[in-house]
């Protein structure tokens, strides 16, 4: 069963494209990654799901209900953490969380305590006195305190230190084990790789790839930067999986996808002055997908 069904969704801001013809299903109980560079349309999709903005065409169904007509019923079971958190500055954390809890017909006090302790959040401080990271923690607690069936996260880790990010990921995995569906939007590939079962890649408002994480992980990309006096151009041109090859005097730079052994085999017989093997940026991977899509 699908928790989220997005059909033919398009959103325009005047003449400007927000998202275009998005079709997407998120299955019940999965952690779904939604990844794309800034301005790709991730937040537009999420804001349309939450009925903060209306679709230009197409529809979104969440729990089988129309996201516009039955927004209130849907919201009962959604926990949302926006990319930037803004709350009422003159409120104390506990007052804000109690206010948030007052919208749901259940006692959330135990969950508020548990989550605050886990995230080391001081409930008695005023919102205006909190650092950005602590505000983000308030956002996490307010998004989860009512035990939602669907958790929607828009760039959730910005502002959290690495230790807190780990705790947060563990919390999300625990929630998922308890049957919660998670929609996780990010522009950081490694976060999505850590958590998600499936991932959709969005670029310039269009979904360009939708695949299982297991498959995406197989398609591991590396960026090689090699400095050597030997000429490698011809040999590299014969290896399948190399793209974006850049040659400048003694320097070779390229993105490689596939078995690493042909590369290491080639390099083993030559004198190398320097070598750097690193994760390519998301932009580079997107560009790769994008070019492949255009070739089709």
């Amino acid at each position, binding site marked *: 069963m699908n928790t989220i069904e997005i059909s033919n969704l398009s959103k325009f801001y005047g003449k400007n494209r927000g998202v275009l013809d998005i079709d997407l299903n998120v299955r019940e109980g999965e952690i779904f990654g939604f990844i794309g560079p800034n301005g790709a349309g991730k*937040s537009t999709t999420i*804001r349309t799901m*939450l*009925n*903060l*903005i*209306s679709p230009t065409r197409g529809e979104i169904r969440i729990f089988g209900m129309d996201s516009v007509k039955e*927004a*209130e*019923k849907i*919201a*009962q079971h*959604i926990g*949302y953490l*926006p*990319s*930037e958190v*803004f*709350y*009422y500055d*003159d409120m104390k954390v506990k007052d804000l969380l109690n*206010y*948030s809890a*007052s*919208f*749901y017909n259940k006692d959330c006090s135990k969950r508020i305590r548990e989550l605050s302790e886990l995230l080391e959040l001081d409930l008695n401080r005023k919102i205006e006195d909190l650092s950005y990271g602590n505000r983000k923690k308030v956002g996490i607690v*307010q998004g989860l305190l009512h035990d939602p069936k669907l958790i929607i996260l828009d760039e959730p880790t910005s502002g959290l230190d690495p230790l807190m990010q780990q705790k947060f990921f563990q919390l999300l995995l625990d929630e998922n084990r308890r049957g919660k569906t998670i929609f996780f939007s990010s522009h950081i590939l490694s976060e999505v790789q850590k958590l998600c079962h499936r991932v959709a890649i969005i670029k310039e408002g269009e979904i360009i790839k939708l695949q299982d994480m297991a498959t995406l992980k197989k398609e591991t990309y590396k960026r090689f930067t090699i400095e050597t006096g030997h000429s490698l151009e011809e040999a590299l041109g014969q290896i399948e999986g190399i793209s974006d090859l850049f040659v400048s005097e003694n320097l070779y730079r390229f993105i490689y996808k596939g078995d690493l052994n042909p590369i290491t085999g080639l390099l083993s017989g030559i004198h190398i002055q320097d070598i750097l093997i690193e994760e390519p940026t998301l932009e580079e991977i997107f560009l790769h997908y994008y070019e492949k899509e255009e070739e089709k």
Partner: protein
Amino acid sequence: MNVYVQELRFLRKSTLIWNLSLFLSLVLMLLIYPPMMEEGESFLKVLQSYPPEFLAAFSINFDTFMSFNGFFGYIQLYVLLALCVLAMNLGLSALGKEISGKTADFILTKPITRRRFLTEKILSAFTILTLTNLFLGFTTVLMNFLLVKEDRNLTVLLLIYIGGFLIQILFLSLGLFLGILRKRVRFITSLSLSIVFIFYIVSMLSQILKKDFLNYLTPFRYFDFNQIILDSGYEMTYLLLSVVLILFFTALSYLLIQKKEIHG
């Protein structure tokens, strides 16, 4: 009713400050009345030396000015200006403050319809204006009993307050409408002050130029306090117009908020 209750909590400090300031202004201005009465003749002479246009602009009417209610009506115009700024603030900030403060994401993703959200915001603003008017109304009655032994017409006082209250509700509904219509509302108090004073200037112009059509353009002419004192009642056309405008702006606000796009 959680939005309603929370809104009252948010506004309690500013409401207290508004009430105290208006209370002090009202009391201090009313305290001028007894010494002014003692010097009645000479005071009137001074006033008569001013050009009629000047007196008209400030709604000074010799037939009513020397009575308690007439003097109060004159003062009330300035208290009303402040109350209209308060009403406009409340209207503009109902959604406008949530959008400019970016808290709309928090509140509008909760299980609450936009209609209910707006209704609770309107009710909280209505409650604040009602309480403020009741407080000032009781203060005025008390001052009336303290300052004058005769010349007591509480019905007229009540009519002046209800008229003023309707003008405030009209500004509240206009503020609501503008707060939802505009993409973002920044500098809410400055905007409120500008709008209220523009309408007040139109009211002064209508008095000076004696152009009746200008009366329809400004709520400050819908309930002429001097007329209320003389007639002990309202002009039905303006009463109806104010009710129609309140309903019009409120209905538009309900329609607009349904379609309002909340951008990040």
